[in-house]
């Protein structure tokens, strides 16, 4: 365990940004936090969470997959990727850290998604234990401990000091790299901090949220619940929840004709969008009810069915804050509770 004074945070960032990119949560023009490439003097946001999750470091909103050049009847296929640089994401919260293992189960499952894999390999995740959880937090319901995040290295922030601890090889390398600005620290203040947060956790309004009614084995009874109609009734069909979600990973593949060739790219897609499953001759999910149901069934039933019971939600609470009509996974879970019993 190492530490540094919060007054010297800039030195830590400077050292971390040496020879690669460093991303930290910083406030944007609208006063909200987002991961931003650090430059000298940039301050870390005081906000608990960034608006968008950290998934875009490994699964960006749009990315070029393959380029084509066409000439007459011939096609040339070009892999547009160049060697990507190593980067560090600093200040990832426990919920987002957990989301990476969920995304891994999708993208690193056979056949491996090489675009994702390459980014995962190049990225070092430095997490930050939570000290001020909010009312929208319910990560504990999904087994996340906000005081002990996963990650390559973990940071804990007290009133005036930052403690850092390497957890993996990459984390050790990171700590080595910044060691010059660190001093040895002992675990006591960290433990005290953890204990304080653990006091707050049970007081959170959503502390008692239960996942007992959900899981891969509850498929048909949940699917057929009549409650979906009222739950989905006011859904606008926008993609806000999907796009701020750390675990939503649906994507679309599209071609763009540049005038000089074709760029095939993938971009985030949302199962909430009306055209998500639209085909030339029909659409299996015609109404918003079906699309709404798909999103929550996926997180609470289908994903656990395929992944040894692990849920596709980490309880970050972003969708609670951001949904234009305040419909969210918590309301869905509370409403459906008991449906499967």
């Amino acid at each position, binding site marked *: 365990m190492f530490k540094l004074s919060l007054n010297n945070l800039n030195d830590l960032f400077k050292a971390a940004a040496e020879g690669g990119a460093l991303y930290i949560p910083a406030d944007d023009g609208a006063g909200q936090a987002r991961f931003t490439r650090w430059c000298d003097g940039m301050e870390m946001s005081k906000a608990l969470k960034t608006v968008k999750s950290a998934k875009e470091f490994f699964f960006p909103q749009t990315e070029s997959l393959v380029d084509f050049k066409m000439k007459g009847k011939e096609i040339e296929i070009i892999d547009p990727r160049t060697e990507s640089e190593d980067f560090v994401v600093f200040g990832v919260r426990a919920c987002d850290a957990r989301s990476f293992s969920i995304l891994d189960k999708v993208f690193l499952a056979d056949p*491996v998604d090489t675009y994702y894999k390459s980014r995962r390999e190049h990225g070092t995740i430095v997490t930050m234990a939570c000290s001020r959880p909010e009312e929208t937090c319910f990560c504990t319901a999904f087994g996340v401990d906000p005081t002990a995040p996963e990650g390559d290295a973990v940071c804990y922030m007290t009133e005036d000091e930052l403690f850092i601890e390497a957890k993996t090889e990459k984390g050790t390398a990171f700590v080595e790299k910044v060691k010059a600005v660190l001093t040895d620290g002992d675990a006591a203040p960290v433990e005290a901090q953890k204990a304080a947060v653990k006091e707050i956790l049970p007081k959170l309004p959503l502390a008692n949220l239960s996942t007992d009614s959900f899981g891969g084995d509850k498929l048909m009874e949940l699917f057929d619940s009549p409650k979906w109609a009222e739950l989905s009734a006011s859904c606008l069909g926008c993609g806000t929840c999907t796009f701020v979600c750390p675990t939503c990973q649906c994507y679309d593949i599209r071609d763009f004709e540049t005038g000089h060739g074709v760029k095939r790219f993938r971009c985030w897609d949302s199962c909430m969008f009306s055209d998500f499953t639209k085909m030339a001759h029909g659409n299996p999910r015609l109404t918003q009810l079906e699309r709404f149901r798909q999103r929550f069934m996926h997180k609470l039933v*289908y994903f656990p069915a395929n992944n040894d019971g692990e849920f596709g939600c980490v309880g970050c609470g972003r969708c609670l804050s951001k949904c234009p009509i305040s419909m969210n996974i918590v309301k869905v879970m509370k409403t459906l509770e008991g449906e499967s019993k």
Partner: protein
Amino acid sequence: MIDETLIPKLGVVTDIRQDTPDVKTFRVVGTDGKKVFEHIPGQCAMLSIPGVGEAMFSITSSPTNTEFMEFSIKKCGCLTTWLHAMDVGQQITIRGPYGNGFPVESAFKGKDLLFIAGGIGLAPLRSVINYIRDKRDNYGKVQIIYGSRSMDDLVDYKEIIDEWMADDGIEVNLTIDREQEGWNGHVGFVPNYVKELNPDLGKTVVMCGPPIMIKFTLGGLKELGFKETQVFTTMELRMKCGVGKCGRCNIGSKYVCKDGPVFRFDQLSQLPNEY
């Protein structure tokens, strides 16, 4: 080199055959003149013309064909219209194979097989049928019930008449929806014809066709005494990635592109009816 799933390979169209007024069969090989990849019957491939679109098509040729792959494609959307307009020598992109394929080496082995197809639904079955014809000893009797709107809409009509019907141990029953001049065969819809033919209950059934045909044929089969565990079908949903990641083609927790497209009906009946 890692096998890239989202970066396609090049294929060249070496032959185009007009099967029916709106179905063409395309022969595709790699730029080296060899097959682009090996597959098992029932698997699919993503074909694309960059800038036009990419879509999943079942491979209609049998894996036992060592020279090329074939795709029978019906003209219905933007990409297929483009494909129909192209000339021999056109390059296309191809990636795959995708999906589970038919259990030709397990569940089908040694069985009497009944194939039921409607319209373009014959395309995915053709791969299995020809595979079985090439490995005839491994399988029992084969019956094929195939129907289409009209005589002209029967895909692979020539191959059916010249080859399949000529084979020993293969019984082919053709039907068309409405009377037509020059047609002496059966007239009527597939589900009714299946009931009329009253096939042996020991047969393993493989079915493909439009949803309405599947629905009524399955009902008919059940009436005859067939069990859901005996009946296989192959599905089609909107797909983008082909590798179970883009999140589109799931029926419940199953992804058609990865866990399918071949399903047994008892599997499907445990999944939501969202297809």
